[in-house]
């Protein structure tokens, strides 16, 4: 039936083109290109090499978290606690090292364990109580932001952590999480590497492993997935743990790049991650999306938010422009995708 129009097998090139057109991130790439070109035209400093480094850095800090958040969204769930979890991870690392007067690597390790436990807690609570993830992670979001503030004040006496820049292990930790290096006149942060690495791994997992299949199924039709034996609960817990893992990376970047962590940070960032994932073509209802899309979404967000600064538009209107650009980029994105779907 489906072969009515062309009974011959398509050539390899045709089929590659068709496959590209069907990728969820296609529209987002078009949106990104449009935004990029737009700001190249309206903002002179935007095209300078140095600016690229800044824009990429801004994109990467959102992008690192957007990857697992996109996976989670494909798996049909949200995580509103993702933003503050980054801060929690940084706080734990810093406070543990400081209070125990330990090598910072010890703090980093402890922080990894604690953060993964937080993620697993989210996931287990979700699958056990069967409450919507919005409620569960809203609860943990509030609890974590309370813990961040309460514990930091209890332990450090102030709302921010103590200086750990003079402690052993700090320089090597910084190399891993917060170094930067210069290529030509572009200053590139190591977060960009982390970001790209995560996108590659997540794409591999999504498209080429059983876990990836399960993620799509868990989000697309959990009942059906369960009926054919997919461990939906385990998959979801795993996804929350993946979010926690990336929160740990982001948290360590925060800590080792700024040395001191403010306990109130991170609130609201969870939405930036979700925005990036959605702009990148993830369906809010689950079952559809890609890691590359989330990266493109993060890039659109990075370009837009920094492009407005480069363009030196009236800062009072900053969020207005941001909102308008996001809407336009997403509209273009959807338009292109629908076109591609109709035309294939």
């Amino acid at each position, binding site marked *: 039936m489906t072969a009515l129009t*062309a009974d011959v097998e398509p050539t390899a090139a045709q089929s590659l083109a068709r496959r590209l057109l069907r990728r969820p991130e296609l529209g987002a790439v078009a949106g990104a290109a449009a935004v990029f070109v737009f700001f190249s035209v309206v903002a002179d400093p935007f095209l300078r090499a140095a600016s690229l480094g800044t824009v990429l850095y801004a994109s990467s800090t959102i992008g690192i978290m957007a990857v697992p958040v996109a996976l989670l969204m494909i798996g049909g769930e949200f995580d509103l606690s993702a933003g503050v979890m980054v801060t929690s991870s940084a706080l734990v690392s810093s406070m543990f090292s400081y209070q125990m007067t330990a090598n910072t690597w010890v703090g980093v390790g402890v922080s990894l364990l604690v953060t993964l436990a937080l993620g697993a807690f989210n996931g287990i609570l979700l699958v056990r109580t069967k409450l919507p993830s919005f409620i569960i992670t809203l609860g943990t979001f509030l609890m974590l932001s309370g813990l961040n503030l309460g514990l930091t004040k209890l332990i450090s006496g102030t709302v921010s952590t103590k200086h750990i820049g003079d402690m052993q292990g700090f320089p090597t930790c910084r190399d891993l999480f917060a170094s930067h290096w210069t290529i030509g006149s572009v200053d590139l942060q190591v977060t960009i590497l982390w970001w790209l690495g995560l996108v590659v791994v997540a794409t591999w997992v999504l498209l080429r492993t059983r876990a990836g299949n399960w993620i799509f199924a868990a989000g697309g039709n959990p009942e059906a997935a369960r009926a*054919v034996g997919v461990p939906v609960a385990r998959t979801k817990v795993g996804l929350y743990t993946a979010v926690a893992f990336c929160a740990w990376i982001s948290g360590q970047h925060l800590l080792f790049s700024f040395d001191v962590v403010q306990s109130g940070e991170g609130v609201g960032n969870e939405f930036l991650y979700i925005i990036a994932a959605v702009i990148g073509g993830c369906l809010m209802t689950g079952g559809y999306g890609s890691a590359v899309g989330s990266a493109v979404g993060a890039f659109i967000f990075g370009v837009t938010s920094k492009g407005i600064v480069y363009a030196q538009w009236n800062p009072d209107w900053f969020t207005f422009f941001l909102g308008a650009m996001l809407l336009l980029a997403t509209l273009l994105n959807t338009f292109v995708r629908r076109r591609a779907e109709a035309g294939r």
Partner: protein
Amino acid sequence: MTAQDQNTPEEPQGPLVALSGVSKAYGNVLALRDVSLDVHAGEVTCVLGDNGAGKSTLIKIIAGVHPHDSGTYTVAGTPVRHASPREALDHGIATVHQDLAVVPLMPVWRNFFLGSEPVKGRGPLRRLDVATMRATTRTALLRFGIDLRDVDQPIGTLSGGERQCVAIARAVHFGAQVLVLDEPTAALGVRQSGMVLRYVAAARDAGLGVVLITHNPHHAYLVGDRFVLLKRGAMAGSHLKKDITLDALTRQMSGGSELDELTHELSRTPAATGPVAATDPETTA
């Protein structure tokens, strides 16, 4: 079939799956009451009954989607109480549900292998064997007469019958020891229905136990060895094939006298047409 004719009455190895006195309530709706059923290797057990009789509920208990409230459920002699479909699958029970267990947005081939993906490579390079998956899906569906050029299209874009075929082809492909099919032929055309029945027969001959739910007594009688009749949640009868004729089965399924009345009425309405009277038995098929 010849082989079963000998061992059916004695059941030397005992049933693969046996339910006895099983009940199940949804809230205060008692969907199943005191139902018993045996599934033997190399046999087809048909479950028949009106809409809402509890057939799907029975299937869901066997498949581990819902646990049963009371009664016993044994697999190969061991009492079980499946908490999830995974457990039933691990006991070798593969099921095709009526409400089509497919993930609409996923490509056909991913749906086909969902939950039982073949992998190749090892360690961190362990990955889906995509080429095999695509090819297998394509050929498995071709056997049903469904020629998908593009196994990458989301399964949600297939027609209702095509979707059903994928689900059945999957269960057959992975068919473990017990194959459970809930109204597999309902949405299917003549060709595909025949295909499914052929698969059922093949599975039976390969020594699997099959549970088949259908509204079509002809289909049931063609491949079935045992017939369990449900009525408003309770057992209304359980027969071996040798004990019942197609006519009796058809009559029992549709509640005897009620059917007569209806057949009468229907054949009366389009008064003058010839073929109606001639095809009376089919009217009720």
